[in-house]
């Protein structure tokens, strides 16, 4: 097989250029492609459109790219906890498109499954529906939402093999499998890269056909955004807000 294995993020993203549209896997800081993000920052590409559920925090994840003004437009479902993001948004430097989380995921799925558009009830009757086609099926209204197009999808998996097959760990799976399917070029960074034939074919989350380049990542920080622990019996909820996010 044409070798999908590259040495590192530098080689994987060599042809990633200014102005491109990227998908970045992860939910919050969980399961984000840390090595790829660091390389994007090092490389200094700019004018990027980033499709990602969140925008990281000030000093980690996509936040690092925001600090260097590399992002032109952010497409996300929730962008809290990022002061630099807030500053750029208010100053008009950064364009933001907020879309429902399920719509975000399903527009990725649509791309990976060759479906040009999907119907979802999310956002009907809200400002999300503005300018969009509404259609009624079985008495319920749905929005027509288009599949995403992304030049690169950057995903992080737990284990991967040289054929590009990927397995994710726990909730670090999140958006990674659907974005892996959706990139014109999909780059996977993995905590452990193994020879093909090592992984159980029945346990592959992302078949290698969707993955164009794969590399063994390094120095994973895997930062925890909300460290919550059980000191007493039961749950210990310290932050309770009436917020939806």
């Amino acid at each position, binding site marked *: 097989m044409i070798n999908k294995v590259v040495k590192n993020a530098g080689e994987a993203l060599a042809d990633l250029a200014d102005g491109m549209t990227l998908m970045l896997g992860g*939910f*919050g*800081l*969980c*399961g984000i492609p840390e090595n790829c993000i660091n390389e994007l920052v090092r490389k200094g590409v700019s004018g990027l459109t980033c499709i990602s*559920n969140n925008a990281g925090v000030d000093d980690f994840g996509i936040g690092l790219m925001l600090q260097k003004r590399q992002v032109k437009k952010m497409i*996300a479902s*929730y*962008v*809290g906890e990022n002061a630099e993001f*807030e500053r750029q*948004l*208010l100053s008009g430097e950064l364009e933001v498109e*907020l*879309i*429902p*989380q*399920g*719509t*975000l*995921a*399903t527009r*990725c*799925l649509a791309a990976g499954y060759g479906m040009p558009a999907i119907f*979802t*009830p*999310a956002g*009907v*009757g*809200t*400002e*999300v529906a503005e300018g969009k086609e509404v259609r009624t099926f079985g008495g319920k209204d749905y929005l027509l939402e288009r599949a995403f197009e992304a030049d690169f999808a950057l995903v992080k998996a737990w284990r991967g093999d040289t054929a590009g097959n990927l397995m994710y760990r*726990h*909730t*670090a*799976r*999140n*958006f990674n*499998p*659907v974005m892996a399917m959706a990139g014109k070029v999909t780059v996977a960074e993995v905590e452990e890269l193994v020879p093909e034939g090592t992984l159980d074919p029945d346990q592959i*989350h992302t078949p290698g056909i969707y993955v164009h380049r794969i590399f063994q990542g390094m120095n994973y920080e*895997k*930062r*925890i*955004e*909300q*460290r*919550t*622990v*059980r*000191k007493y019996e*039961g*749950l*210990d*909820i310290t932050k*309770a807000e*009436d*917020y*939806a*996010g």
Partner: protein
Amino acid sequence: MLDKEGIAKRIAREIKDGYYVNLGIGIPTLVANYIPEDIDVVLQSENGLLGMGPFPYEGSEDPDLINAGKQTITMLPGSAVFDSAMSFGMIRAQKVDLTILGAMEVSEYGDIANWKIPGKLVKGMGGAMDLVASAKNIIVAMQQVNKAGESKLLPRCTLPLTGVRCIRKVVTELAVFEIDIQNGGFHLIERAPGVSITEIRNATAGRFFAADDVPEMRL
């Protein structure tokens, strides 16, 4: 008048054995503390988990295991992990029996606003729009009156909407309401302990309906 824990406690009584439940951030999360011991409930976390357990003990936090509020959590026996498309797929297909979420405003027709305050920084709707548009059974947990003393149960929402005609039940610090989505109106079905119908009526800006003998809630 209930505190947040009280609201959570009351909502927990809505949960039935075998339910799959999605808990939003805030008061809804507290509900997990009051699920009766004798029933089995599976918590869905929309970032891709069924079977969410309590927070981990200190030192055993796993960065690969968080809930939709980005908090470190654990998995219970029988858990299943899946991607975001399947997670919202099962939400959209109404496989989740009960969704509990917070709100800033609810209208007498069951519209809800909980994601955006014009003039304030908008963080995003996360999964809220998907949840309210799809769930067959939603309970809103909210404060009925804001800090300025104004009701948040309104004839119509003033804030940008999260969803329309989707909320049928609201639990507040004062009461439990059922909403008549067809004709409009908050129907008082339970009073918080020691709270009078008049007090509740005064704290309800939308159309209000109550029998003379609305019972106090059990907690």
